[in-house]
């Protein structure tokens, strides 16, 4: 049976897995962004996550909030573009919600994820259906909460969130973008996956893998 909490090392593991996934899928993310954006989402996320890895390698904080805030600040100051402030805000807000603890239980992690999501909404002012990373993240966080509310454990919540994120990513395919660069394409943005939703699916896939391994 998987652990019922995730500690700072676990969060670190999550971030490392996400970085590895982004590095592996870098070209695919850029290809998605070529179709309806400016061909840099893979480069952006890879640059940011490798900066985060380096930063955490040089001094990994012991407290959950320090770890998450460091990741967020590093993303903000190394990515640029739309995804930098958005993913950066996500981790910053998660850190603020988590507080100076060494481990998070399932409800605490759920609250942190929700805070991260709300940070993205506050920054980016997108709504579900706008064909952005929200379309993967919002159902993922909802699914996480729902699993816990239904009596599921951390592992089930993480698994359901990963599935919901992937489903949300795929659901961006037919959408006409209303936010971000893809919105300039109007109707032509339909028929393509949103690159940010694709990287967000990797984020929750990585979380699931971390919890399952933990």
């Amino acid at each position, binding site marked *: 049976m998987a652990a019922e909490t995730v500690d700072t090392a676990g969060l670190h593991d999550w971030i490392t897995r996400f970085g590895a996934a982004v590095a592996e899928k870098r070209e695919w993310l*850029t290809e998605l962004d*070529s*179709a*309806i*954006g*400016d*061909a*840099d989402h893979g*480069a*952006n996320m890879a*640059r940011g996550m490798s900066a985060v890895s380096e930063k955490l390698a040089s001094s990994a904080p012991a407290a959950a909030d320090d770890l998450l805030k460091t990741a967020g600040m590093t993303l*903000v*100051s*190394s*990515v*640029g*573009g*739309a*995804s*930098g*402030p*958005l993913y950066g805000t996500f981790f910053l807000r998660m850190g603020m919600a988590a507080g100076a603890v060494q481990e998070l239980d399932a409800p605490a992690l759920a609250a942190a994820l929700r805070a991260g999501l709300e940070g993205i909404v506050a*920054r*980016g002012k997108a709504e579900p259906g706008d064909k952005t990373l929200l379309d993967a993240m919002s159902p993922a966080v909802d699914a996480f909460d729902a699993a816990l509310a239904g009596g599921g454990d951390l592992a089930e919540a993480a698994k359901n969130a990963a599935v919901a994120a992937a489903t949300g990513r795929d659901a961006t395919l037919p959408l006409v973008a*209303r*936010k*971000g*660069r893809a*919105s*300039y*394409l*109007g109707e*032509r943005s339909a028929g393509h996956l949103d690159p940010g939703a694709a990287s967000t699916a990797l984020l929750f896939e990585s979380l699931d893998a971390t919890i399952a391994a933990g």
Partner: protein
Amino acid sequence: MKKLINAPEDVLVESLKGVAAAHPELAVDLETHVITRAEPKAQGKVAVVSGGGSGHEPLHGGYVGRGMLDAAVAGEVFTSPTPDRVQAATKAVDRGAGVLHIVKNYTGDVLNFEMAAELAAMEGIEVGTVVVDDDVAVQDSLYTAGRRGVGLTVLLEKLVGAAAEEGQDLAAVVALAQRVNGQGRSMGMALTSCTVPAAGKPTFELPDDQMEIGIGIHGEPGRHREPLAPASEIARQLVEPILADLDAAGPAIVMLNGMGATPLIELYLMYGEVAALLERAGVQIARNLVGDYITSLDMAGCSLTVLKADDELLRLWDAPVVTPGLRWGA
């Protein structure tokens, strides 16, 4: 990918090194990618800062200098710079009279400059912001990211730079910037895609007999694709949507801009077509620019910008400017 580069990941810094070597009148920070004037303005003058993704040269670094920008922040290719770097530029040029941020309307640019302005506020620096959104290729709406910021940015940086140089205060400079943004519009088209160095191949494929109408400056595909047409027809497709959105009769400043791989002989030919159409529509071209001013890497194509002018704007336009990209009167 055929480019005069070394490793794709070094393009930005190595290009900035070249800028530093070529322009002793600029100070180029190879860490933060911030370009400032070697001789800063005096205390008490509003500072004008712009920035954005690289790949649009001479924008923005080439517009740093007397009568135009105080600082430019170069992001990675087509990627807005990060808030800490915008903040570094802001601090470097603040002379106690406030700083104007000129931001092109892209989610990334808007978010990063917004965070930078929050950082500046925390340090007690007054920041005004203008978000340029002149691209008529994009339908504006309350529910979308709105129009893109493209060619008008060049004209706005010149005009606002002149106002700041002559000592106008932040409120006046911001008001001018808003006014200029309100009365300028642009429209672009591409014959070819561009190739982002890190991507290594063209952002979109455009068959030999097709062109993209309504492109931005990031190799984004345009609003639609259609068969390659003669220059006269292309000119019509640039002029009409602008005039449909802006009552431009009367004096105007007009820019016919190359996207990076379009030779001057073609730009002049296009300018001839465009000028004739505009004049037929009652636009009196008082000043013009023809050349590469806001590019999209190695894209072939062009964009047209029309800014309604008046005596005050023409006076500011004619004020001396000494930058690598624009220079007159000194």
